[in-house]
């Protein structure tokens, strides 16, 4: 009996060990390029590990039972008439409940750290203080402080994004932003529902006609990333993409001044 338990513990701990190893070593996500991304990836890792443990565990039991308890040729008769076990059933009600609750609270914490639970106060939203703006992700609490948001207006239409820089009074087809600065975008749709998604930033927000939405983020890595429309918006939905170019502050300012001049 002791022997059997010993193997069982060995098996369970190796499943957990393998799951942790995979969770920490297999990366399924793209580059982390915003303040939100590492927070997201932390949640992903935890869920990935819990998921692997459960999946490996269940699969192993199912496959083992199929082999161990299979009917050998010619064998007849029934298994034991076991109709239930209250203790076991309570265990597998209570333990998953606790896990689900902990995961829920933890993801609440993650969401809070991403700025999702923060009210989108009027001072964070650009003009039109009286206008009701629906929540996207708000600015991080643990953000680089002391800097003003860079406000950009996004308008989406079939099948393009346009980026309006109010400070420079010009419109661009590419979204240029300086690295490590708070960006606040206010989005409006001219026709149907679109969505603004940057996979490397791990953020997404629908752009809803008749209802402006706001999304705040802080890019942390210089580079060019895709902006993808994620909501079916018509025949060319798959082609509705733009680029976000994250630059050093000096490069960004050069680009900004160039455009400002030409359009002025």
């Amino acid at each position, binding site marked *: 009996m002791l022997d059997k338990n010993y193997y069982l513990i060995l098996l369970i701990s190796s499943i957990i060990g393998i799951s942790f190893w995979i969770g920490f070593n297999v990366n*399924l*996500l*793209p580059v982390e390029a915003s303040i939100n991304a590492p927070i*997201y990836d932390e949640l992903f890792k935890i*869920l990935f590990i819990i*998921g692997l443990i*459960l999946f490996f565990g*269940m699969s192993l039991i199912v496959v083992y*039972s*199929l082999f161990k*308890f*299979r*009917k050998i040729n010619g*064998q007849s*008769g*029934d*298994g034991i*008439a*076991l109709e*239930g*076990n209250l203790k076991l*059933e309570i265990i*597998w*009600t209570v333990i*998953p*409940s606790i896990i*689900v*609750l902990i*995961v*829920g609270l933890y*993801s*609440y914490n*993650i969401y809070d750290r991403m700025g*999702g*639970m923060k009210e989108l106060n009027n001072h964070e939203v650009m003009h039109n203080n009286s206008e009701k703006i*629906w*929540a996207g*992700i708000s600015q991080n609490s643990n953000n680089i402080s002391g800097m003003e948001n860079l406000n950009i207006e996004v308008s989406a239409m079939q099948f393009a994004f346009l980026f309006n820089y109010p400070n420079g009074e010009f419109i661009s087809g590419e979204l240029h932003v300086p690295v490590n600065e708070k960006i606040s975008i206010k989005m409006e749709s001219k*026709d*149907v*529902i679109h*969505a603004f*998604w940057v*996979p490397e930033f*791990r953020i*997404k927000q629908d752009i*809803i006609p008749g*209802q402006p939405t706001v999304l705040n983020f802080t890019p942390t890595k210089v580079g060019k990333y*895709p902006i*993808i*429309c*994620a*909501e*079916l*918006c*018509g*025949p060319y*939905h*798959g*082609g509705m993409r733009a680029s976000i170019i994250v630059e050093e502050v000096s490069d960004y300012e050069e680009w900004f001044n160039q455009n400002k001049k030409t359009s002025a």
Partner: protein
Amino acid sequence: MTILINSKNEQKESLQPKGLLRYFSFSLDHKVIGIQYLVCGFLFYLVGGSLASAIRIELASPMSDFMPRDVYNQVLTLHGTIMIFLWIVPVVNGAFGNYLIPFYVGARDMAFPRLNAVAFWLIPPSGLMLITSYFVDGAAQAGWTAYPPLSITTPQSGQIIWILSVLLLGGSSIFGGINFIATILKLRRPGLKLMQLPMYCWAMLGTSILVVLSTPVLAGTLILLSFDIVANTGFFNPVLGGNVVVYQHLFWFYSHPAVYIMVLPAFGLVSEILPVHCRKPLFGYTTMVFSIMGIVVLGLVVWAHHMFTSGTPPWMRLFFTIATAFIAVPTGIKFFNWVATMWGGKISINSAMLFSCGFILNFVFGGITGVALAQVPFDIHVHDTYFVVAHFHYIVYGGSVFVIFSSIYHWFPKVSGKLLNEKLGILHFAITFIGFNLCFAPQHWLGLNGMPRRVAEYDPQFQLINQISSVGALLMAVSTIPFLLNIFLSIKNGRKAGDNPWNALTPEWLTSSPPPVENWEGEAPLVEEPYGYGKPIISE
């Protein structure tokens, strides 16, 4: 009482055509209607599957080069609508429900046989209408979700026919739901207690409650949407002051429960199949019943998790996260109970058993990604991507469709009196299981890395993974060949099955195969222990 039933049946018999012709008639026999549902559903499955193949061919290359872009959107809309409303919902509810429920409650037919026939005969015309709308002015192309304003601005005829067809199918579903509730609660044989019913009855009771509560909401919503399209009203049209997010709330108030309408009956069917082939009682009957009802209640209050990236306030996101994640608890109970049913049994490894085990593995995987998707911050990144596509195919294909196949292998001897060929069955399982996982597992990665759903073109860096997925889809298409071959060969010259080839204890096996029109020659047997395997009384 018995006299009444007899006179009714005499009348019933004299009115019905005999032989194969029955299946094309307005038959009132629940067994005939069940088969009508199954065969009709399977034909639509072949249509929906061909559309899926077209999608996977288009996605084998990153450019939109296989079909015009608007046709691609029509194809994906029809694929979703057909698979949900014409294949899975009618088959797991209508087909198996009609065939089995009267046996399980010890009745000679459903409570309302005529309503039952009407419910079935609504399906073929609305399905044909939906498919042929392509030839009018193009089919609907706003996705099966039909979100306005896209559904208002795309060509109107296709969208209106789509709405009409879904309304009729919803009506059929409601008629079926009312019928099942009445049959299970009111037509039970004297002496048969609720807690002695086979688990599929409980699953169908729960499902029918969901159908009756939530389908009317969808119907109302679609009627308002059709007003917006044809009469220029402004319920959901932002140009006229309407609100598009309200539509999403109303739509998902039906369409999330719809997932349980597709999955709960499958849970019930597995609960019938596993004990028979494991030769063990169903583990934890009472907790199973409570977990079904728990899923029904929770299933009604989780809809907004489809809208985490729409405009929803933060508190609402938090509530729906917790509610959604908690569905994992009753669902988990069921899976632990099934595994406990297998543990220590005398398991026959056959096609029905393999498909059921495949279902358990696929569904556990889809359930885990489901709990992850319930978390708002997780969902915000992967919402509307291929991660979601992969997740729900693990639930509806890996879950429900695997169970449909398992059930066909299990109940084919009852319906036809013949046995299916096991070798072909196991081949069918192997190709389906490998093809399915090859098709959908890689799609999780695609979604995480930046491929949105419902696109005809994509970033070339995703080409290889998409091609692997398309190979999986090809295998899934091929897997129907051994299945159909098996069915036709076995109907023609399969081995005689006898009345009860599995030595099962549930009531449908306690009559001849195929059963007589009145289900039993004499009175319906009183089955107090449908899962009494391994008990001394049963052995003789």
